[in-house]
């Protein structure tokens, strides 16, 4: 059915020049194709990868000038110049990508705005190449009947078809990208960079990829524009253009495939309908932008879509051999992780001080201690989110002190977060599949082209992850938006996401917090199953029942120091541990205590002892 819709659309595009064959209409429609490319490129950078770039007009200019100069001044054939301009745009996009690696949000917005202005300034000053303020003229163009391809003169109609062919190709590639693991990785980066890194996604690389791809789309649009209009000058690429590039995907539907195209149609038609002074046009753009996030945050396409579908995810049956193995290589005997002498300081505060820890495959190691004792900090250090620390860490015998968080994840380390860091806008299934990111190997070009191998890999992993979600009883809500799930489901989803990469090391930060009794049961089963499979597990928890129930070994932290370590029975009786949780004991105070405190102490001591799994009072 979908194919029928697309076929109809293609038929319409092919038929139109026969109905409206005037030059003006053809030029306008060609501009539509160009705008579709522009909007789609911006959508990849902003909608998909979440990088707000206000400098795409600079890349538009670079594409236009590059192709214009190559053909008008160097007499290169247009079939060489346009691809060259496209590649140049991708390269130039790296310039905006660089600050994007360091800064976010409004910093990036302002810098990219500055980039666009810089390109304009360049175009004005570098007159020997660009023609400066007087512009670059005599660009081979169908409008002036000067565009030739292989000896054949290109007509306006042919140019129109060529542009729409490229626009269609662009949409096809974008569709493949969005649905591939690369596209998911970009969406993950958009939702939470920290969580993305923890899934093995190299955030910097993904951002650069988004910028480069978006840049290529934009530059291609620029090259097509230059040849259509036969003349480029710096004014065409001013801030108003940056606004237009921004507003098209925004109104159409940020992050969707068809949103940019719809936006392109709207904003091509608007000046035509409004016929009035350009200033009134600008006023309307301003109003739309101001109202956008309050009135229609999802854009036109978002409104058309129905939200909150809860179709259960179809389990795709694949032959047994195809399903990716859930077995992990077991390395018994050798510790999975050795951390020695870990120390972390925040300003003057020592969050961790000389902490040692060892994790072994198949063993569940609990990390407990009062609030602020440094448990989360330790996990952050181990998962490489904090990189400034003293001491050494080894995973499977190899040092990981220089690794990034995503590299650690790819080395087999998975974790959950104390404050949930799900990719809230993505579906539950997508969240889990992103967890399996390190298992995907198809390169980005294959993903964009939609090769067989890429599709097969996708199908394989998908099947595996669906099965995984099943074990967590989440597959019924697989297509639901992660942010709409119940709290308990969300926590289980984070665990599923971590498990999806079939890790050798699993670090869980307060996984039981906020869970009901039934959910805690499920959690316990999942953790024990993982350990049975040979995973080395570290669990931070305050729930003593839970801890005593599953831990093979316990480490206790207090004020950044390790104050106790060993088997659960030993630790729970350790005076130092009790002291840390309750304050100083009677003995330390010295002298005969008044009777009231003794009673109180007994009242407290008994429940504590029982909670720690001791004999009932």
């Amino acid at each position, binding site marked *: 059915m979908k194919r029928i819709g697309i076929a109809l659309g293609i038929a319409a595009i092919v038929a139109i020049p026969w109905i409206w064959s005037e030059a003006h209409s053809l030029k306008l429609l060609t501009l539509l194709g160009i705008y579709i490319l522009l909007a789609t490129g911006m959508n990849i950078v*902003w909608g998909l990868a*979440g990088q*707000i770039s206000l400098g795409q007009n600079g890349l538009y200019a670079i594409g236009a000038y590059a192709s214009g100069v190559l053909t008008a001044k160097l007499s290169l054939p247009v079939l060489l110049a346009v691809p060259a301009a496209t590649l140049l745009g991708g390269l130039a996009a790296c310039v905006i990508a*660089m*600050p994007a690696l*360091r*800064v*976010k*949000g*409004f*910093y990036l*917005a*302002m*810098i990219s*705005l*500055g*980039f666009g*202005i*810089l390109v304009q*300034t360049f175009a*004005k*000053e570098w007159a020997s190449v660009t023609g400066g303020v007087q512009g670059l003229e005599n660009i081979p163009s169908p409008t002036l009947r000067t565009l030739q391809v292989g000896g054949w003169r290109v007509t306006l109609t042919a140019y129109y078809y060529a542009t729409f062919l490229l626009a269609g190709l662009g949409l096809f590639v974008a569709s493949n990208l969005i649905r591939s693991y690369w596209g998911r990785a970009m969406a993950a980066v958009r939702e939470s960079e*920290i969580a993305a890194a923890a899934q093995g996604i190299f955030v910097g690389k993904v951002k650069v990829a988004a910028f480069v791809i978006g840049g290529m789309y934009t530059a291609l649009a620029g090259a097509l524009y230059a040849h259509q209009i036969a003349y480029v000058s710096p004014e065409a690429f001013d*801030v108003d253009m940056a*606004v237009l590039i*921004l507003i098209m995907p*925004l109104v159409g539907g940020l992050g969707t495939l068809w949103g940019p195209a719809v936006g392109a149609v709207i904003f091509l038609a608007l000046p035509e309908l409004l016929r009035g*002074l350009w*200033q*009134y046009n*600008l*006023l309307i*753009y*301003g*109003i*739309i*932008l*101001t*109202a*956008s*996030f*309050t009135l229609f*945050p999802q854009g036109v396409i978002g409104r058309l879509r129905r939200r909150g579908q809860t179709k259960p995810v179809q389990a795709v049956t694949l032959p047994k051999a195809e399903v990716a193995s859930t077995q992990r290589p077991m390395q018994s005997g050798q510790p999975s992780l050795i951390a020695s002498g870990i120390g972390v300081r*925040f300003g003057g505060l020592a969050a961790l001080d000389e902490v040692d820890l060892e994790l072994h495959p198949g063993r569940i190691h609990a990390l407990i201690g009062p609030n602020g004792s440094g448990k*989360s900090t330790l996990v*952050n250090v181990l998962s490489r*989110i*904090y990189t400034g620390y003293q001491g050494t860490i080894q995973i499977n015998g190899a040092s990981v002190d220089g690794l990034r968080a995503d590299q650690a994840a790819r080395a087999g380390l998975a974790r959950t*977060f104390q404050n949930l860091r799900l990719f*809230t806008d993505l579906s539950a299934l997508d969240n889990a599949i992103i967890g399996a990111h390190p298992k995907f190997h198809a390169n980005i070009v294959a993903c964009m082209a939609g090769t067989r191998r890429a599709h097969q890999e996708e199908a394989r992993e998908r099947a595996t992850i669906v099965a995984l979600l099943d074990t967590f009883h989440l597959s019924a809500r697989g297509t639901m938006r992660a942010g709409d799930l119940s709290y308990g489901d969300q926590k289980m989803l984070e665990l599923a996401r971590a498990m999806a990469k079939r890790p050798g090391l699993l670090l869980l930060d307060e996984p039981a917090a906020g869970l009901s009794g039934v959910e805690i049961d499920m959690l316990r089963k999942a953790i024990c199953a993982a350990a049975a499979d040979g995973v080395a597990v570290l669990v931070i928890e305050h729930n003593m029942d839970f801890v005593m129930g599953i831990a093979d070994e316990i480490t206790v932290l207090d004020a950044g120091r390790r104050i106790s370590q060993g088997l659960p029975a030993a630790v729970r009786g350790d005076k130092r541990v009790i002291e840390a949780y309750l304050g100083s004991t009677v003995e330390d105070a010295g002298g005969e205590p008044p009777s009231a405190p003794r009673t109180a102490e007994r009242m407290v001591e008994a429940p504590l002892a029982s909670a720690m799994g001791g004999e009932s009072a």
Partner: protein
Amino acid sequence: MLQLLVSGLAVGSIYALVALSYNAIFRTSQVVNFAQGELLMIGGLLTVGLYTWFGMSIWLVFPLGVGLAVVVGLLIERLAVRPLHGKGAGAHGWIVTTMGTGIIIRAAAFIAWGSRDAPMPKYLGGGRVVHIAGVAVSEDEILVIVAVLAILALLELVNRYTILGKALRATACDQEMARLVGIPAPRMVAASFALGSGLAAIGGILLTNVAVSSPYMGIDIGLKGFAAAALGGLGSPLGGVLGGLIIGVAEVLGAFYVSSAIKDAIALVLLFALLMLRPAGLLGRDVIEKV
């Protein structure tokens, strides 16, 4: 050379003032108002327009100019910033909406102002030139530099030693917490917008005194003012002033010794370089995110 320095400081003072206006808003609301340049512009335009074509006295037009900017600033807060609170759109939300309001203001100014020309009002000094140490300094340049330093001092005093200042800073750190302590956070945010708009309008008035007024006035200076604020470290008023003066001087020196073509580019290149090396800015503090 000294002559250039003085010019640079005068130009930079306006950037500094704009940087202060960005900071005033950012410190309390964590929002960078993308319409800041336009607030400067309408404050300046209204003042010049009323003075020139209605012959009103400066004691009337200055407050009116500032007042208009403050009203518009409050509108921006109400329409473009407050509705986004808690919508989860993040920074992208208010970037787009404040940018939208800036565009509205600019378009409206174009429509209202049209193709008029306003004579240089000379309401702040008749352009008399004073010679100090062999350098020609015009009255209004001195005025601008002094005014900005005075405003900076005043702001710092208010921030550090008054309850209002502390309340504004508390809201900046944690809106929820501030509310719990009895500080009306939304009103504080609105107040910060009022303050920022007022400062921008003053900058606009100072600018109309030395330059030709037009609805285009706000675009470039908005960007350069932000560059100054970011250079100095967002959230640090002193840093913003420093950033503004640095950019102003760098521009003039660059135009003289290298080429006038790079004048506009300098602010941006400086910003680029700094944000790559030290994102927090010169006097800013690194923010550690709790994971």
